[in-house]
């Protein structure tokens, strides 16, 4: 290592400082006119207009459902096991054997499926682990809540009828 000296000799024009100021002022004036006369801005007016993220963005989870609005989750505990933040809590139960239209495909069901969004690190491991494509991450990033209890989402809240990840479709 050792110190790298990046200083250089300044020319007279650079040392006079004023030409550089004028160049800077030209730039800000250009921006000012663009903003003032043409209303140009690079920011978005957030609550009215939302930033579009790609479908690969990992936001809040949801649990996909089939055409009967029954969740695809079979309470296999794979997501709970792989979760590095330990934010998923599942309680499993058997479906009623006599009255099960899915047969062997959905023998188990989650009685409760809670995700603590405050613990979650949005790594997406649960989504990768899931054999049924039941738990997925949506592109929803507006997760502000006013108390800690509200950040624990249950099964009813998580169930969504969506094809892909974003709500656009």
């Amino acid at each position, binding site marked *: 290592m050792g110190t790298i000296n990046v200083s250089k000799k300044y020319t007279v024009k650079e040392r006079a400082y004023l030409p550089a*100021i004028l160049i*800077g*002022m030209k*730039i*800000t004036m250009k*921006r*000012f006119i*663009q903003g*003032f006369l043409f209303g140009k801005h690079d*920011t978005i007016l957030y609550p009215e207009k939302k930033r579009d993220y790609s479908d690969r963005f990992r936001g809040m989870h949801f649990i996909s459902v089939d055409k009967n609005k029954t969740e695809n989750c079979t309470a296999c505990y794979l997501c709970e096991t792989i979760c590095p933040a330990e934010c998923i809590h599942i309680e499993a139960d058997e479906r009623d054997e006599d009255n099960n239209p899915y047969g062997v495909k959905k023998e188990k069901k989650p009685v409760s499926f809670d995700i603590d969004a405050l613990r979650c690190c949005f790594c997406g491991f649960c989504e990768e682990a899931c054999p049924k494509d039941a738990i997925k991450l949506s592109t929803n990033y507006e997760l502000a809540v006013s108390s800690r209890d509200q950040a624990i989402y249950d099964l009813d809240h998580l169930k969504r009828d969506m094809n892909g990840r974003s709500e656009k479709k």
Partner: protein
Amino acid sequence: MENTLIFDLSMMMAKILVILAGTLGVVPIMVWFERRGAAWMQRRVGPNRVGPFGLLQPLADVVKFIFKETFIPKNANRFYYLMAPIIALIAPLCALAVIPFGSKAIINGHEVILQVAQMDTGVIFILAFAGLEVYPVILAGWASRNKYSVLGALRGSSQIVSYEISMGLALLSMLVVYGSFNPHEMVSWQQGTLGFLPRWGAFVNPVGALIFWIAIFAETNRLPFDLAEGESEIVAGYHLEYGGMKFAAFFMAEYVAMIMASGLLATLFFGGYGILPGMSTLIQAIGSHFAFGEVGFQNLKAAFEFISFATKVAFFMFMFVWIRWTLPRFRFDQLMDLGWKILFPISLINLVVVTLGVYYFNS
């Protein structure tokens, strides 16, 4: 006799009202423009929620300031603590009284000189009150008994003092040219043309104008010389312990000082209330269209003089905002270097050169 007294008094009140209402009315507009202009220069939108184009944002701020708790720190020196914002606001307002905003209007057969206080020592008076601007900085910093405030006050006052010297020398070089302390005589000296340029002080003495211009940025604590404030180093600066209306007073004082400095710069170097080039034909056209007499012409001229003065002040106010959002701030040693090693010698040499020039042209 009675009537003239009442007339004079009412005219005086009217002039004071014009200056006071004008200045304090410009402050909220400037606050809005500062924020909106900053946004435009940085490709943002800026405050646009309160009222049309966010124009009522300053009003919302004022309401917030008024309803805040009046808080005085336990160990603060109450008297000086409360004195500081008052001085900060009053000193530049007093200095504004001497800056003329027009030659004279004729009302009811009386000549009314458009300046609140007619003084032969006008510029000295302005300098005295501009010099008072150091006191609120020191008082506020010291009286609130906070280490950060004291640091901000020290930085601010040393900056103001070191720039006041070059400012005074630049002003002195103009006094040599004008040969008078009276702002009216300065403005009348600047009438006429220098070739194709107006005979403004800035074209007679460009170096002095530039130094004065730079110095008023430091005097009013504006960027790039806002060393009295520093969020990252000293939390806020000399007004750290102030809140509510007391902070609002400091905030307003900054803008009043900017208006005062702009007016002073316009009067000394940019023709003051002298009408802008091309306006005289406009006055002739309007006057002859409505068939004005001599009185009407004079009043029309006074109105246009006021418009010219306001335009110049508005331009310099815009420059304050423009420069603020263009330049990064100086480091403290760079600031002192610029003040003492560059501006001070240049202004001294400039004073000598201008004095020799005036001697040469007059003899």
